[in-house]
C-alpha cells in the first residue's frame, strides 16, 4: 500500500502531498523534512529506492521535480516506480508537456488527476485514456456550471 505521495522540487519545496495513512500535521512536516534530506542529496545513477524507518520510499526525478511514494517493505518497488511514471505521463498529456510551473499554478488539477489514479493508496486505473476522459468530463462539468451561474457572479469574481 502507498502510504503517501510527495512531490518535491530540487530546492525542497513541496508541490503536492497526499496522505493515505493518518499522519498529524506535525508528523507530516517531519516526514517531509527527513525525506527531502534523504532523497535530494542522492546523486544520479543510484537506485530509485531509499529505506526509511522500516518503509521504502520509491522516488523518481523528472527535471526539477522529485516524485516520491512511500510503501511497505515487502511491496513491489518497480511496480510503484511505474505508477509514478504512469502519473507523470497522464500529467504530461493533460498539460501538454508538463513542467514544474504547470504543477505550481494548477496544483489543484494535479490533485484531481491523482485522485483518478490512486485511491486508498492503491492503483485505481491503469488506462491513461480512461483517466484523461474522466478528467475532461470533470472540466466540462465545472465549465458548464460556471456558465449557468450567469455572468453577474462571474463578473464579481473577476473583479476580486
Amino acid at each position, binding site marked *: 500500500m502507498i502510504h503517501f505521495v510527495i512531490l518535491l522540487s530540487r530546492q525542497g519545496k513541496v508541490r503536492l502531498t497526499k496522505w493515505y495513512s493518518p499522519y498529524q500535521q506535525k508528523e507530516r512536516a517531519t516526514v517531509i523534512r527527513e525525506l527531502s534530506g534523504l532523497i535530494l542529496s542522492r546523486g544520479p545513477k543510484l537506485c530509485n529506492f531509499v529505506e526509511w524507518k522500516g518503509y521504502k520510499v520509491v522516488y523518481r526525478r523528472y527535471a526539477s521535480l522529485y516524485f516520491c511514494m512511500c510503501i511497505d517493505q*515487502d511491496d513491489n518497488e*518497480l511496480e510503484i516506480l511505474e505508477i509514478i511514471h504512469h502519473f507523470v505521463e497522464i500529467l504530461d498529456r493533460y498539460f501538454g508537456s508538463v513542467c514544474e510551473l504547470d504543477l505550481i499554478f494548477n496544483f489543484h488539477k494535479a490533485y484531481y488527476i491523482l485522485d483518478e489514479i490512486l485511491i*486508498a493508496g492503491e492503483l485505481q*486505473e491503469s488506462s491513461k485514456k480512461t483517466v484523461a476522459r474522466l478528467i475532461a468530463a470533470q472540466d466540462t462539468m465545472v465549465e458548464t456550471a460556471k456558465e449557468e451561474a450567469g455572468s453577474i457572479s462571474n463578473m464579481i469574481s473577476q473583479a476580486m
Partner: protein
Amino acid sequence: MALSGMRGLSVFISDVRNCQNKEQERLRVDKELGNIRTRFKNEKGLSHYEKKKYVWKILYVHMLGYDVDFGHTETVSLISAPKYPEKQVGYIVTSCLLNENHDFLRIVINTVRNDIIGRNETFQCLALTMVGNIGGKEFSESLAPDVQKLLVSSSCRPLVRKKAALCLLRLYRKNPDVVNIDGWSDRMSQLLDERDLGVLTAVMSLFVALVSNNIEAYWNCLPKCVKILERLARNQDIPPEYTYYGIPSPWLQVKTMRALQYFPTIEDPNTRRALFEVLQRILMGTDVVKNVNKNNAAHAVLFEALALVMHLDAEKEMMSQCVALLGKFIAVREPNIRYLGLYCGNCLEENMTRMLLVSDVQDIIKRHQSQIITSLKDPDISIRRRALDLLYGMCDVTNAKDIVEELLQEVICDPHKLSTISLQYLNTAEFAMREELALKAAILAEKFAPDLSWYVDVILQLIDKAGDFVSDDIWYRVVQFVTNNEDLQPYAAAKAREYLEKPALHETMVKVSAYLLGEYSHLLAQRPGCSPKEIFTIISEKLPTVTTSTIAILLSTFAKILMHNHPSDPQLQEQIWSIFRKYESYIDVEIQQRSVEYFALSRKGTALMDVLAEMPKFPERQSALIKKTEDAEVDTAEQSAIRIRSLQQTSNALVVTDQRPANGSVPVSQLALVRMPSQNMEASSTHDQATSQDQINPQDREFSHQNGSVTAVVPQEVHPADLLGDLLGPLAIEGPPAPAVPAEHKDQNLLSTPEATPDAAGPLALATVDDQPNSVQPIANIAERFNALCLKDSGVLYEDSHIQIGIKAEWRSHHGRFVLFLGNKNTSPLVSVQAVILPPTHLKMELSLVPETIPPRAQVQCPLEVVNLRASRDLAVLDLSYKFGTAVVNVKLRIPAVLNKFLQPLSISAEEFFLQWKSLSGPPLKLQEVLRGVKPLPLSELANLFTSLRMAVIPGIDTNPNNLIICATFHSESTRAMLCLVSINLCSSDIRVETDPTDRTQLRITLGSGDPILTFELKECIKEHLVSIPMQAPTPGISPIQPQSPVTPAYNDPGAMLAGLL
C-alpha cells in the same frame, strides 16, 4: 487553462513565489490568511466562487508547510453544496487537509452517505474517493453496506464500481468486520470475472486484502486468479489502452501474483500446471531492454513471479532457474535491478533454509560473492545495506574470513566517500550503516571464528580502527570471551599490550586493553616490556586524556597490578597509591569512592589477594550482540506490512510477534566455542550467584566467602561487573535482575532462574524444576495491582519473570470489554498456555481463544467480554497456566470486573436530587451506616476516590462543605428491566457521605437506590474502598494524615441536615 477563472489564486501563488526569503513569504502568507479569516467571519456575503478560491488558498498554504487552524468548517461545508464545482472542491480539499481522526469528518458522514446512495454518478465518485482516501472507523460502520451495494450493482458504470472497490478496501482495513466473509466468497468469485480491467485492478487490490485475512473462504477464487494471469500473460483480449509499453497491465499481473502467494499450495493439478506454464513464460521471456519504463515494468512482473515460484515449492529445475536469474541480477549494472537482486537473494536465502535446498542455493550465491562484495562498496547506501544483509546471511565457516575482512575494511574506511565528505559530515544514515557493519562483523567473527585468536584480532582491530562505530556491547563481548577461555588470556593480554604502544588510541581501545591487562598481565610477566611496572607506566600515560568511565576502569587495573606486585616493589606501590590519593578528590563520586576503597584495600596486605582475585567465568548466554541486531530488525519491522498483516489475522487473539531471526539462525548460545575447563556444578553456581549479586546490588561491598573458595563480590570488580552485567543482563525484555537466592539454594538458583539457558542447565533442570511447579515468583504484589485496577482501566495485572499480563478495559452501560495482553518476556516460546475464566453468577463472561503458544517476545491480545446481570461484589477469576522449559506455572488472578465499573457518573440538579432522595423511603432501599477506622483523607482526596469509582461528586447541593453528594447510575441487565418505572431506564443511586470534621477516621454513609440488593452491595463496595484506601488513590503530594485538617468547623450540624432530608 481551467485555472483562468481563479485569478486571485494565481496572483497569490506568484506573490509567494516572488518572495525573496522565508520571512517575506511568511508575511505574505499571514496577510492572506488574515484576509481569508475576516472574509470567512461574515460568511453571508461570500459567493460560492470565493469560498472555493479561499479553500484552495488554504490548501496551498498548508502545502507550503504552514499551520492553518481555521477554515476547516468552510471546507467541509462545501461538501454539502448542491453544485458539482463546489462539492468537488469540498471533497478534495477536505481529504487533503484532514486525516481520518479529525472530528469534523463526523459532521459530514450523512451528506457523504446521501451522495453515495443518491442517483448522481459524479457525486458518488467524489464521495467514494474521499471515503477511500480518509475514511476511518466510523465511516466503516455507517457506509460499508452502501459501498458494497455499489460494487456489485449491475447498473453502476465501471467508473463508480472501481472506486467502490477501493473504498471498500479502505473501510475493510479500518474495520475488517464490515465484510461478511460467508457471503463474500461467491461475490468475490463473480467480481473476478469482471471484463473491465480498471475495475478488475481495483477488485484485485480488495481481494489481496481479503485473502490475506482468510484464505479458507476464498479457495474458489484461486482458479479465477490463474485465469486472469493467463489472460494477461498471453495478451488475450486486452484492450490496447491497458498495455503499458507493450506489457499487458503489469500492475494487475503483479497484484494477481501477490494474491496467489497467500494460498499455501495449489492442489488441483490442472490449475497448477496452467500457473507454472505462465510463470515459466515470465521467467524465460523477460529480457533486459533499453527502454527504462518497459524494463522496470517487465522486471516488476518478473520479481513478483520469482517470489511466487519460491513460495510454491516449484520443481527443482524451476528453482535453479530462479537462482540463476538472481545471480544475474546481483551482477547487473542497473542499480534498481541489482538492489532488488540483493534483496531477493536474502529472501531466497531464508526461504531455502526452510526448504532444505540450502546447499544448492548457497553454492550459487557464493559464486557471486565477489560481486556482492563489490556492491558493498557501492556509492549507493541502499545497495550497500542490501549487500551487507546478504553477506551476513550467506556467511558460514568457509567464507567467514573473507567476508569479515571485507566488512572490516568497509567500516574502517571507504576512501571515495571520505574524499568528498569529511567524517564529521557523515550523515546519520551513513553513521548508522557503519555501526551496523561493525556489529555484524563482530557477530560473524565470533560465530565462525576458525580459531579464537583470530576472533580477538578482528575485534581489537575493529575497535582500534573504527572505535567510533563500535558499541560498548562489542567490547564487553570480547572481554567475556577472553575471560571464559583460559588459553586465550595470555594472547589477548599480549595483544592489548601491543596496542598500547600506539601513540593515538581510541578510548574504547584504552578501556579494553586496560581491562585485559589488569586481569591477565601477570601471565606475561616474563616477557620483555611486561613487568607490572612497565604495564603500569604505559597505562598511566593514558590517564590524563580519558573520560570518567575509562578512569574507573584504569583505577581497577592499577589495583590489580598492585595485587600482582610480587615481590613487592615499593616504588610501584607508592606510584599507584599516589594516583589513588589524587583521585580521592576527583569530581566524580564513583571515582572518589573507588580511589578511597582501593587505597584502603591495598593496605590490607594479603587480604588483597582474596578480594582482587581474577574474575570468575561468565555463565553462557546468548550474545547480546545478536540480540541487538534482532532488536534493530524489530524496530524496523514494527511498522511494516508484516505487522499490518499480522493485525489482519482472523483469530480474535492477535499475535503481534516481533521476532524475526536475524539471519535464519536460532538464537543459540553463541559461546559454543568456549571450552569450559573442568568445573563442577557448585563452582559455577557460585560464580553465577556472585554475578547476580553483583547485578543486584553493585553498592554491596561485602566480601562473601563460601565453602572456602575465594569468591567474590569484589569491590574492585564492581564497575566492570556492572558493565558486563548489562551485557549479561536477563534475556527477558524488561526482566528484572534475578532475585538473590540464599546460599543453600544455589543449585536451584542456577537451574531455575530464567537467565540460565536450558543448554547451560543441562539434564538436571528436568529433575529439580518439576518438583517445584510454582518456583516462579510474581513481580510486585498481585493484590496491590488488583486494587489499583479497580480504580483505573488499564495497567498490569500480573507479572513474573516469564510473562506479563496487562489489561485494558472499556465500559459501556452494563457491557464491558477487557483486552488481556499476554506478553512473553523470554526469547523462547511459552507453551501450553491455558486461560480459563471462572465467572461469578452475576457476570456473563466470554474469553476469546487464547493461543496455546506465545512466540518469543511477542504479545498476544485476548478480548474478554463482560455482561453484568445484577449487582454483586463477587469476583471473576482467571485461571492461567503456562509452561516455560519444564516449569509449569499456574496462577489464579482476580479480574477487576468489579461493581463500580458498571457505574456511570451522573450529575443532577439539587431539585432532582432531593426529589429522588425523598422518594426512597428507608431500608432496604436506603441504608445508613457509620464507618469507623476509615483512612483519614482530606475531602478533596475523598472526592477523587469517588471519581475514580466512576461516581460524580456534585458540589453545591449540600450547603455543608464537609458533606459530599455523590451520584451515579448503575447498569445491569436485570435492574434495567426492573426499574423502568423510576426514571430513564436505569436505576439511580444517591449516596451521601458525611464527614465528621473532628474525627477523620469516622464517617457516616447513607445511600439509596431503587434496588435493595444494589443499595447493600454498593454500600459494601464503597466501604471496602474507604476502610482500606487502596494504594493508588492518594497522590503523593498531599499527606493523607492531617489530624489538624484545614477544614473549618461546620456551622451546620450534619446530622440535622440529614434528618431534614430523611
